């Protein structure tokens, strides 16, 4: 979680300074969600990412240097510079990038889950979806399909309160995503996404259920979004206090630290040590990514078709 956070806080600074290509959506504030999910995934599983992709990619164990390089569109980025920030894909590590339109991870995830079952790998698929994306038709279609086919799929809705600028409370009928689970005949829960342990427990239950062959589940994870929708967003649509309060009261890193220290699991010193190592790592990652070369012009027409490379 610290690595995700530090990565994003640095990205926030780098973006403001210029030099980061494309659009960038930061994950800061939501780390407990990705961490809680990835704690239960193995190599044969597939995590379907959203456009707010950096955090989950790091949590899933993608090479953080290749992650940063992809964001900078470098030749040895995760996707050889073809995808960029929103499309962090690492097939070998069971990480699938978001495809726009938003929400299609649910359908693609049904497929990954179906393949796992058909091939008997024991794998599951976990799709991350935003609160805004829940209103895409393909999400409903995918939930229904997963349910009638009893697929090993877990759909995790990261409700950060906004789809771009529009509030979840405005956009979602009935006010709750977890509610939709019942309509599609699967278990559904809403959990506090600022608490790593709560998320992890809930995902653990859902993943076990899926692995047992008992079908899909839905989890709504309530998370704060510390930065704007994308970098450069003036956030006129929400009060400055809202984000400040979230930082103060719902920071998953602070909560995690307090919890593991008070439970005696880890000591403050070891946590500080980790933070220090992370800071060094992030420095190296950014230095290396920025210095890396763009993809070779000569490979422009590669990777279109399977036989074109």
């Amino acid at each position, binding site marked *: 979680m610290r690595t995700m956070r530090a990565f994003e806080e640095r990205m926030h600074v780098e973006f403001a300074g210029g030099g980061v290509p494309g659009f960038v959506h930061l994950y800061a504030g939501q780390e407990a969600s990705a961490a809680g999910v990835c704690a239960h995934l193995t190599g044969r599983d*597939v995590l379907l990412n959203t456009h707010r992709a950096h955090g989950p990619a790091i949590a899933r164990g993608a090479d953080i240097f290749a992650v940063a390089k992809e964001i900078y569109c470098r030749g040895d980025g995760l996707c*050889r510079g073809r995808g960029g920030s929103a499309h962090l894909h690492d*097939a070998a590590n069971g990480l699938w990038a978001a*495809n726009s339109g938003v929400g*299609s991870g649910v359908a693609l995830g049904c*497929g990954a*889950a179906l393949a796992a079952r058909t091939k008997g790998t024991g794998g599951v698929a976990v799709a991350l979806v935003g609160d805004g994306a829940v209103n895409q038709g393909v999400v409903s279609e995918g939930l229904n399909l997963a349910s009638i086919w009893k697929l090993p799929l877990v759909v995790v809705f990261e409700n950060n309160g906004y789809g771009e600028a529009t509030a979840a409370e405005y956009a979602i009928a009935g006010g709750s995503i977890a509610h939709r689970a019942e309509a599609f005949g699967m278990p559904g829960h809403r959990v506090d996404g600022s608490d790593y342990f709560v998320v992890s427990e809930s995902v653990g239950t859902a993943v076990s259920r899926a692995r047992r062959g008992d079908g899909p589940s839905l989890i709504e994870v309530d998370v704060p979004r510390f930065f704007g929708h994308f970098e450069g967003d003036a956030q006129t649509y929400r009060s400055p206090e809202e984000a400040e309060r979230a930082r103060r009261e719902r920071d998953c890193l602070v909560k995690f630290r307090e919890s593991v220290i008070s439970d005696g699991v880890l000591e403050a010193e070891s946590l500080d040590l980790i933070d220090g190592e992370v800071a060094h790592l992030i420095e190296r990652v950014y230095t290396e990514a920025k210095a890396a070369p763009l993809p070779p012009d000569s490979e422009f027409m590669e*990777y*279109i078709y399977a036989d074109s490379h």
Partner: protein
Amino acid sequence: MVLKTYRQAINEALVGEMRRDADVILMGEDVAGGAGGSGEDDAWGGPLGVTRGLLSEFGSDRVLDTPISEAGFIGAAIGAAAAGLRPVVDLMFNDFVGVCFDQVVNQAAKFRYMFGGQDQVPLTIRTMIGAGLNISSQHSQSLYPVFSYFAGLKVLVPSSPYDAKGLLTSAIRDNDPVIFCEHKLLYDMVEDVPDENYSIPFGEANLLREGQDVTIVALSRMVHVATEAAAVLAREGIEADLLDPRTTTPLDTESILDSVEATGRLVIVDEAGPRCGMASDIAALVAEDGFGHLRAPIVKVTPPHVPIPAAPNLEAMYIPDVARVVEAVRRVVAY
């Protein structure tokens, strides 16, 4: 060889590939004959009878009836393909790509490229094209030009049972997303089709007739209209080179250009629309790369720019016919 219908040829390609490779699965509305009902399974074989018998032989793990959720199940098929299966999906009418267009042109087509070549998406989408059944403008379109717009897709337009079997076999074996366009008026066409599996490579036009006066390029069902027209013209002493590209992506540009080099004249016969369609695409190719050989305007015989009407008389006006092709060829030859 035995006479077989286009429908049987497609069924045989499916059976052949499903026997050959356990990763091949089938998904679509009613492809398993309608799940969950009080009657027999697998007696129907989908709206076109093409998939009959498959459920019985391959079981419900490999032949899956879907809800009416094209975006959902085509998305699932893309995911399954990227995860190692080789799904063949039934989209019924190609017009329904409207409800799953993002999956087809943004997800399937770009999955490999956008992620820098990490994956392959060996997906085949079977879908019905074409007018002629009086079912109006949302069930009669021919959308392969739209599919052909998008890099990352391969697009097939088989005009005969023989080609249907060979091209579908290739499609299923291919490692990229392929749209296989079945013309709804061809299902009952019969032809000699080998019992064994065979494949036809993509990007190789079929030369159906040789002639020195004009090149006719025709696609899908229009191949038969053009064949008839060519016979009429031959009686007038006009000999046509008749080419069926069979696949629009990849397109066999070489054969088209070679033929025009020899004849100096080109007529394109296509049932798809006149704007940004395949006829425009081929005409534009030749106007650039074959210009030096052209001795007459390139004439496109297509429907006009209008939605497709249900009424039989109006629909007949919509679809290019032998008379229009003959007239067009006479015109370019007389130019």
